[in-house]
């Protein structure tokens, strides 16, 4: 599994380590608030990079083996990526700044920006594969589904959180919603990665005795239609 989806495993481990480190900076009394927010920024940047590399890994697994659509897909996802970055930048520019501290409101905007681009790219991958009726590998589908659910819920939450005051008590509801969603997604990943799928036996294919002739004749038709 680690060889099949190395970026996902790196993402899972590094995200857990980064979140634990950030939690430690939050609860250790000697760590200042400014240090906590710097750790939060570092965590956000690491996670953003990992998420985009992970989206690239998902894309490569789903479309990479199909020559006829891989290039078109790459072209479209790059173009969409540029559009989403611009859209996220515009959304950040027009977002309300509810914290007097730039480092705090900046972290919230970075979160929102990341989730806009991430969810847009993931939706594109689903739309593109749906149009071509591609069958996904079960584990990859689980990873993508979990990541998409998490990014959509976080995007909606951060869009609302960005408009609430820094000390608004309603903030906790959305913080808990984000945490609950992420934990549910982690359980989903465990399910898709660890629980084996039902094995359907492939029927034994009966080949004709003279199938080499059939092969040659049909390959001629393929090469020179």
């Amino acid at each position: 599994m680690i060889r099949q989806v190395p970026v996902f495993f790196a993402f899972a481990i590094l995200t857990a380590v980064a979140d634990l480190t950030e939690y430690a900076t939050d609860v250790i009394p000697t760590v200042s608030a400014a240090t906590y927010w710097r750790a939060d920024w570092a965590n956000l940047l690491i996670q953003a990079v990992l998420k985009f590399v992970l989206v690239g890994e998902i894309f490569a697994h789903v479309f990479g083996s199909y020559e006829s659509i891989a290039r078109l897909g790459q072209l479209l996802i790059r173009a969409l990526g540029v559009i989403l970055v611009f859209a996220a930048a515009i959304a950040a520019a027009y977002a309300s700044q509810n914290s007097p501290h730039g480092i705090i409101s900046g972290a919230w905007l970075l979160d929102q920006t990341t989730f806009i681009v991430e969810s847009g790219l993931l939706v594109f991958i689903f739309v593109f594969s749906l149009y071509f009726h591609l069958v996904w590998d079960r584990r990859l589908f689980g990873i993508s589904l979990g990541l998409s659910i998490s990014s959509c819920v976080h995007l909606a939450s951060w869009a609302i959180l960005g408009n609430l005051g820094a000390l608004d008590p309603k903030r906790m509801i959305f913080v808990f919603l984000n945490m609950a969603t992420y934990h549910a997604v982690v359980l989903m990943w465990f399910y898709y990665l660890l629980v084996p799928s039902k094995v359907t036996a492939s029927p034994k294919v009966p080949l004709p005795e003279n199938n080499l002739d059939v092969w040659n004749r049909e390959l001629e038709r393929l090469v020179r239609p």
Partner: protein
Amino acid sequence: MTLAIILVIAAALALVFILGVAASRSLQISSSASLAGQIQPIDVEAFRVLVDPAEDDYLRRRLSAAEFRVVRRERLRAMAAYIRIAGRNAAVLVRMAQGALTVGDADTAEAARRLVDNALLLRRNAAFALLRIYIALAWPNSGLAAVAVLHGYEQLNGSAMLLGRLQNPAAPVRISATL
């Protein structure tokens, strides 16, 4: 606040779409047995006549400009109908061939891989051709090349026949009414 509402709506729509895809995926798996019955045969010769530029030139010479535009639009709509069916057939073949990719037999797996590539190419070409047809419906005098779709469909037909013969020599998959 308006921006936040837009983002929340966009996120909700994306979530609904993704959950819908997840639900349809499980339905697809359960209904994959009846795939061959979903293929609609197409008369490739009739389609070839429709996309033949010489036919258009002939009609352009014989008809007045207004009459030509009417006839051309009708032909374009017929073309679009053919291409939509070809695209749907390609989608069915993608699913059938993907099921055969994991078969232990190397020949069948190779034929399946080739069929998947051809079917995906056809589906891509069908999307582009439909786009061009819809543009041509607005400007009927513009040129139109649906030949790539025709070529792709003929190639796909050969691949499907081959896979069908390898999987079941008695009953090859037939997606063209002229074969």
